[in-house]
């Protein structure tokens, strides 16, 4: 059974890789590349958040705060202190890990929705600081962020690159980079799920009491997965900032936190590919609804509400369930 499980996971990764690398065949304009890059990076953060929601059964209402710290720490260190992108990204992520551990460790000993309250508070405090420390962050107007660089090599949407002898634009290069990052994020998450830590986590979600009775230190594992999900957000935030070239505190806002958690639940809690679909849908929906102008907000709320009412398990699990039922029906068996 376990082998089947992993095989299914591998299928998901292969499927995702095909979609990521086939997409450039269908789009070519810089706006679409930009949108796809943005979705890939946000989806990376959502994959991390899904580890917390899907496997520890906890929700975070402040993940945008971690995303924001990642972006702002990188922006400040690279533009004001001349750091290179990778050290800034790593140190920022370590800082976020420390914050997440400090907040998560005492609170995750409690049962219930306390983490959601604590993360809501942490997210808001981070957003308020980013908005008010104008000298450091530029306040509500935001701040510029230099291009992503590795050992002197720069990745910029305005650059020209060559890959396997082909000339590619900076937009496409960024998209491919973001796609590879997303695949790596998924691969790491799936490995974590199949590891002993992942099994312990699943047992926590299944029945916390039973897990602690058989000796799983539930609080420790929950804190650990919270830290990992926060680090995912921080890293993706830093990359997102480098990609955009300019960041504002809206990336750390409560609205964005809500959007991230909504992507997880809409796509299907616990399904790595599902939550990526959630990210794609919720990022594309405003583009589609923009034509409706004043009705945009109302329609967005309505669609979100109806989807969750009629597909409470999320888009992908509901679709998979439906297909399975049809398949078993046509096979004539009741397996």
């Amino acid at each position, binding site marked *: 059974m376990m082998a089947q499980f992993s095989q299914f996971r591998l299928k998901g990764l292969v499927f995702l890789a095909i979609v990521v690398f086939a997409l450039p065949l269908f789009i070519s304009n810089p706006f679409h590349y930009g949108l796809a890059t943005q979705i890939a990076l946000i989806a990376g953060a959502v994959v991390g958040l899904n580890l917390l*929601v899907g496997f520890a059964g906890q*929700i975070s209402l402040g993940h945008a705060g971690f995303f924001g710290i990642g972006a702002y720490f990188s922006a400040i260190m690279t533009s004001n202190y001349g750091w290179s992108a990778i050290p800034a990204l790593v140190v920022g992520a370590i800082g976020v890990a420390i914050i997440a551990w400090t907040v998560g460790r005492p609170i995750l000993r*409690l049962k219930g*929705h306390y983490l959601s309250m604590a993360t809501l508070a942490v997210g808001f405090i981070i957003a308020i600081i980013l908005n008010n420390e104008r000298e450091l962050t530029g306040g509500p107007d935001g701040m510029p962020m230099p291009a992503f660089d590795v050992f002197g090599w720069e990745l910029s949407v305005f650059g020209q690159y060559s890959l396997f002898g082909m000339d590619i634009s900076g937009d496409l290069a960024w998209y491919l980079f973001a796609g590879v990052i997303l695949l790596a994020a998924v691969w790491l998450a799936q490995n974590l799920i199949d590891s002993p830590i992942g099994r312990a986590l699943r047992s926590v979600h299944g029945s916390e009491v039973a897990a602690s009775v058989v000796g799983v230190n539930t609080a420790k594992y929950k804190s650990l997965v919270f830290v990992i999900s926060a680090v995912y957000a921080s890293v993706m935030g830093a990359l997102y900032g480098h990609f955009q070239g300019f960041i504002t505190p809206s990336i750390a806002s409560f609205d964005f936190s809500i959007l991230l*958690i909504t992507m997880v639940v809409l796509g299907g809690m616990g399904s790595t590919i599902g939550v990526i679909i959630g990210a794609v849908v919720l990022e594309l929906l405003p583009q589609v609804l923009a034509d409706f102008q004043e009705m945009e907000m109302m329609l967005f709320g309505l669609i979100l509400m*109806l989807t*969750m*009412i009629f597909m409470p398990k999320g888009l992908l699990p509901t679709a998979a369930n439906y297909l399975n039922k049809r398949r078993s029906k046509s096979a004539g068996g009741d397996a």
Partner: protein
Amino acid sequence: MFSEFLQYLFTGITIGATYALIALGFTLIYNASHVINFAQGEFLMIGGMATVSLTAMGVPMLLAIVLAVVLAGVLGIALQRLAIAPAKNADVVTLIIITIGASIFIRGLAQLVWGKEYHVMPNFSSEEPIQIFGAVLNSQSLWVLGVGAVLVAVLVYFFTRTLTGKAILATSMNKDAARLVGIRTQVVLMLAFMVSALLGSVAGIVVAPITFTSYDIGIILGLKGFVAAAIGGLGSGMGAVVGGLALGVVEAMAAGYLSSDYKDAVAFSMILVVLFFMPRGLFGAKVVERV
């Protein structure tokens, strides 16, 4: 010096009373269904905005208020019947996302109907402020406090003296047992949403002359109410009232003595302090879970 302190205290208690009413709404729904209702703030918005627009159409103030409260109550029932009840087998997290969807939908609808402008509502009684020891008290503050106190008294009576109130309490304590003794828990859930909506809309109406009102006022007020409920211990009525007042006063003091930019940060830090040192909140019950 003293007059300054008194001034901040007045401001804090007034806004705190509003937070307390919102927090009570959260508590009611949380107890009945374990759902954190993120559409709670929209009930306030509906109360304030409907009153303003009805009076603008020439409806007398008192009638406008009654109609606005009824509208919010109907909305509360609709939210439970149409959005929460059909998804009753869903995960609590899914239900929370449904309430988020509902709040965006209601806000979008309000924006469509009433536009994006801020609306001003006149004070209920005199516009003349009251002077006390050198501090200025807006007469509307007395309305907020008075109405808040009456609502809390009515709620206490409702939950301790009436059969319906006791049925709601019983359902929140143990749903299955409540059903066994013949309580129709779905009706109870609907009632909880309705009472919660009524509370929210009244709070939204009495506070509107002080804060102004607009289609998006519900977001931040709703969140503050949630913070107040969390500080008091989610699920405790007493905690909601004390949490609301404490939050309002701390916020006003922080704005006055520290920095108005960081007053919200101080408010949110209170959650962390309470969770770290009194994990169940000020009044949260100790939970012993049977397996």
